[in-house]
């Protein structure tokens, strides 16, 4: 749309007279300040308590490790990632496991107090004490105790083997000298302005408006870091507003640009679109408990053959994403490439449905024993691409005699609906952490409320493999088990995998060092390296 200056000139003059003029624009990105359009205001800056992404927090509070843009787990406040090979992980005869974390020497909290193993121990104890509301106690609840033989060594004693131990302290540690003996939920000073060891500290949190971070003068990686002096996170929940601000230059960085906004941003001179393959996948969940025909593997295979995933990806998604065949994504070390895949083949799909006894009725919809092959596909409303994809699926299922009616549901309601199992089929994604664990999603005993197996799918052999993978500390063995599990999943196809979830961030063209991140670790994981070069 073009707007002619002439028609708006009188109004323009009136507004400049009111003082709009040049003051309206925020300063352009300089080496001093980077303004980020952020999609929500954090609930708390306490990494352990927040239930949104920890992008802002991770600039302030560092983990013992972080996962990089290739999903390698790399040490931050730890000297090394403990493994069985480097002696950091030992199995005890009683079936338990000891993990020894060596901390980086010379790291200080922003108030000058050294960061020590006592902070690691305090974090575990505080979370297990249970008198406040950390978001997740996963893994911590398996820790019996922590020993601190010296100020830089923490030995974590697990009651059982816990395979994802490497990410146990990805959210960092809580400062003992600040929080000891206090109710952490009520420690507003910490929760609003957390004490960290990271490259930035919180200067101001203006409720409803922004959080301003400022580089710390003596960051442990060296005085040359961070290179950008200040980060301003503006809270802009409305997506269109966020994109408009990006175009007008009021904000210079927007993380996770919705796929349907990418076209608008392409070709803008000051913006670079950074894309990484995400560690998540869009798929159709098939609730076997609610709609029993899904319990037949032949029906599921027919449905998989009915879908033209390439067409969906190339048209509706502008080829931003790639077709995938399973829940573990190509970036993961546990990814198995050689799985059964289901190419688009409608005649094969029809033949499979025929063989399963589903015969086309007069209106073209298949029927078996008086039951029509008709179900409701739910998906989140207001998610433009998903709405389009669900309609494409509807058409493709219809072509082989399956009737899917689409129902759109708002984001908050849909989570409680799937958690209760009140749906037939659902188009959605899972966004995963760097650890490849799948037990929660596919083990037979992990149906809600005990887990997220919302296909309500049961397979004993798969369940055994998944639990075995969780209970091995040997990375190689674990990966073998997970690869076997992926092969089994692809044969049984309890859900219909569609495509990977690309993560696209819009960043200033002159920003150096930005890599993005495929996981929920978020793109700010290496913010200390970012640099705005003058153009």
């Amino acid at each position, binding site marked *: *749309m073009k*707007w002619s200056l002439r028609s*708006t000139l009188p109004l323009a003059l009136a*507004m400049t007279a009111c*003082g*709009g*003029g040049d*003051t*309206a*624009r*925020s300063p352009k990105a300089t080496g001093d300040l980077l303004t980020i359009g952020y999609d929500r*205001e954090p*609930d*708390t800056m306490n990494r352990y308590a927040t*239930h*949104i992404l920890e992008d802002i927090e991770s600039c302030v509070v560092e983990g013992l490790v972080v996962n990089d843009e290739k999903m390698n787990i790399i040490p931050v406040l730890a000297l090394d990632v403990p493994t069985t090979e480097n002696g950091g992980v030992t199995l005890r005869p009683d079936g338990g496991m000891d993990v020894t974390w060596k901390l980086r020497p010379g790291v200080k909290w922003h108030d000058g107090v050294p960061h020590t193993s006592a902070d690691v121990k305090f974090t575990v104890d505080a979370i297990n004490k249970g008198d406040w*509301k950390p*978001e997740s*106690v996963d893994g911590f609840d398996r820790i019996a105790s922590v020993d601190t033989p010296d100020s830089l060594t923490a030995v974590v004693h697990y009651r059982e083997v816990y395979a994802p131990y490497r990410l146990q302290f990805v959210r960092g540690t809580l400062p003992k000298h600040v929080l000891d003996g206090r109710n952490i939920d009520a420690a*507003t000073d910490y*929760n609003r302005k957390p004490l960290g060891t990271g490259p930035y500290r919180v200067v*101001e949190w*203006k*409720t*409803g*408006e*922004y959080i*301003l971070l400022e580089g710390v003068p003596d960051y442990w990686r060296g005085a040359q870091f961070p290179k950008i002096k200040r980060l*301003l996170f*503006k*809270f*802009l*929940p*409305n997506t*269109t*507003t966020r994109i*408009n*601000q990006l175009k*007008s*230059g*009021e904000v210079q960085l927007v993380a996770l640009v919705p796929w349907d906004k990418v076209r608008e941003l392409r070709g803008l001179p000051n913006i670079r679109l950074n894309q990484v393959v995400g560690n998540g996948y869009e798929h159709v969940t098939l609730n076997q408990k609610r709609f029993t025909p899904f319990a037949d593997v032949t029906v599921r295979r027919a449905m998989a053959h009915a879908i033209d995933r390439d067409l969906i990806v190339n048209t509706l998604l502008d080829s931003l994403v790639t077709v995938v065949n399973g829940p573990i994504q190509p970036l993961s070390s546990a990814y198995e490439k050689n799985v059964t895949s289901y190419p688009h083949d409608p005649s094969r799909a029809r033949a499979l449905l025929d063989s399963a006894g589903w015969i086309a009725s007069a209106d073209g919809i298949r029927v078996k024993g008086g039951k029509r092959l008709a179900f409701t596909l739910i998906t989140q409303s207001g998610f433009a691409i998903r709405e389009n994809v669900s309609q494409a699926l509807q058409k493709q299922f219809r072509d082989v005699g399956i009737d899917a009616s689409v129902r759109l549901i708002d*984001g*908050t*309601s*849909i*989570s*409680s*609906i*799937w*958690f209760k199992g009140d749906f037939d089929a659902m188009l959605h994604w*899972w*966004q*995963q*952490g760097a650890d490849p664990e799948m037990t*929660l999603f596919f083990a037979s005993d992990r149906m*809600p*409320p*005990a*887990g*997220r197996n919302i296909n309500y799918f049961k397979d004993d052999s798969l369940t055994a493999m998944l639990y075995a993978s969780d209970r091995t500390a040997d990375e190689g063995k674990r990966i073998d088990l997970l690869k076997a599990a992926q092969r089994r999943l692809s044969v049984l196809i309890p859900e219909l995998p569609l495509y990977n979830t690309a993560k696209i961030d819009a960043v200033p063209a002159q920003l150096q060092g930005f890599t993005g991140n495929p996981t929920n670790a978020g793109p700010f994981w290496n913010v200390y390296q970012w640099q705005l070069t003058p153009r």
Partner: protein
Amino acid sequence: MIRFVVRRLVQSVPLLLVISLLIFALIHAAPGGPLSTYLENPNVRPEDIERLRKAMGLDRPLGMQYLSWLWAFVRGDWGFSYADGRPVLDRLVERIPATLELIGVACVMALIAALPAGILAAVNRRFDRVSSIFAVAGISLPVFWFGLLLQLVFAGALGWLPSSGRASFDGGDFVDRVAHLILPATVLAAALSAAWSRYLRRAMRDTVARPFIRAARSRGLSERTLLLHHALPNALPTFVTVVLLDISMMASGAVVTESIFAWPGIGSLFTEALGKRDYAVLMAFLMCGSVAVMVLNLVADLAVHTLDPRTRDAA
């Protein structure tokens, strides 16, 4: 007069009770709850969800949750936000100035536009035709669409005004704040001024057609005196009632406007609380809204009472 006010206040108590029960039932009937946002996150285990449900008191029967909320509420304890754990009262109070600023400025803008437009439209046919086009447009423009359009033009294409926020984080002087106010206040004022000018036009027309105006005109009074000193005071009570009732309704327009323009008022807090099913904040917000509607109703009655001598004996 005082008896009238006291009676109205006493009557409002049972009404507020019923409203609180209705609101509580409605927001709990919507699917999802404060824990819904946790469900998508694979780090949050089912055990965690159970633990958090207990810690937040969401495992108690609904009736008990209502009664304990009510008992605390009447004692001035509005509870803690489910979303960020801070006191609800703090969360509301810190947002109120921004909303008052926005609504106040929008009202003034709407009045400045509506008063002359309404009067002129009542007496000048040609102006009436033109203004009715603008009025229909103003009333029917969806707030979110109009808001985004203004952003695109004045912040995006032309770059004259900031697209959102209340002030630049390092600016914040008077000029900067005015610049930030213009777009959201215009959006909010547009629909109001359109509706108000039509109300005033109608009221003025009715008044102008009445015999006492004809009588005054026959006495040779100028049109200007007739309109401003005889017709307007008679048309005003109806108009003032509408304006005051609309101001209480404005909260709903402000919810959308504030979200689009990232205005840090209670409207955007409401949107956020609704998305997160933050029951504590929602209850407090909606109760405050109900009280505001009641108070403004009362103020409207009192205003009419003051403006219209005929109602004084009745009260």
